């Protein structure tokens, strides 16, 4: 069960997002409570693919090292094609939220599958629209799930870094 409090940070590129994950882990945050969402490249010169080696999912493509590294640290991996957004890559517990939403056929009016997953963890619609726009613009979302104290502490860690935006969502 993913907690319905979160701190969402928006990053311009994957290097910043990865650095933020490492900073949170260094501060003692639980890797099982971090999710990352980004757009997968579809350009012809950057072919991508997924494959499974044993118990670990691999990402092959322009950002394979980035996603491969994250999947080594975070729980869960997913690759979706979302209408309007294109290919979206997710790592962390948000994957199980999204899968649950899809399996339960939970439809939240006017929202994509990703939007429905974000909505189900307590993020309001107007923020979801902004986050989907950010993903569409090749930005990355780093989501810290937790109780109010945890997400506030995450805000303090992330607000001092490279994040373009850091918002706390409380239920």
């Amino acid at each position, binding site marked *: 069960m993913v907690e319905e409090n979160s701190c969402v940070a928006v990053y311009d590129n994957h290097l910043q997002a990865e650095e933020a994950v490492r900073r949170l882990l260094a501060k003692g945050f639980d890797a099982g409570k971090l999710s990352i969402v980004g757009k997968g490249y579809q350009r012809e010169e950057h072919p991508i693919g997924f494959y499974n080696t044993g118990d670990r999912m691999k990402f092959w493509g322009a950002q394979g090292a980035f996603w491969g590294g994250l999947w080594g640290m975070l729980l869960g991996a997913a690759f979706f094609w979302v209408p309007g957004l294109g290919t979206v890559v997710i790592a962390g517990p948000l994957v199980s939220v999204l899968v649950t939403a899809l399996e339960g056929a939970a439809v939240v009016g006017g929202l994509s599958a990703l939007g429905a997953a974000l909505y189900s963890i307590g993020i309001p619609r107007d923020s979801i629209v902004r986050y989907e726009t950010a993903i569409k613009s090749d930005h990355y979302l780093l989501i810290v799930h937790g109780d109010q104290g945890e997400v506030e502490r995450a805000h303090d860690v992330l*607000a001092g870094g490279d994040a373009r935006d850091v*918002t706390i969502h409380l239920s």
Partner: protein
Amino acid sequence: MNPQSAFFSESIRCLKQSALFSGLATSSIEDIVTRCRRETWKRRRQLPMEETWRRFHILLSGRVRLSRGNAENGRMITLFLLGPGEPFCIFSLLDGKPHDVMLETLDDVTLLSLPMDEARQWLDEHPEFNRKLLPYLGEQMCSLAGLASDLALHDTETRLARLILRHVDSATTEQHVTPRLINDLSHESLAEMIGSVRVVVNRQLQHWKQEGIVDAHRGHLEVEALQELVRRAEELPHKVPA
């Protein structure tokens, strides 16, 4: 908040449109927004002021109700209903103490939040804000005084009429108006704003509906005959040109 944030300009725009912050220099508004963090709270979030008074909050969207209750009989009285551009808790900002108030979000709300000390520092650095803050505080005090005197001096019909009129533009000449902030509240919430109970408010609204003064149905309230409502409120708080 990072000025590069997609939410930064939206926050500035909201504050510029509010009664409390309008007219302030853009640089002053940018300064406070930069010091704030952005938060969203889900609808029906309830928390005692002891959990919030150490931070100063400014609503960007949605409504928040500040109320007091009696745990023994379950009755509530709403002290303030706040909308976009309004802060809480302004009293803790002034005296640095928690107050016995319960806070509840009536919608999904977006707000700016900063530590009280930081808010006081911003006030010190921007004394021009006092020209807005003092009249706002005066309004808040008048509102509380009005609530106290209404509870002591007037019957439910008058109190309900006054409540609705307080949420109607006092300059309007229209007879058909939609009250702001309260037009979609439940009858129970309306009752909690005038120290009454749901059945009494429901009965009064149905009575006015039959008289053609209001149109009240589930989750929606419209005034159909403003001048008559003013008469029911004893014409004190609101004046409508003939």
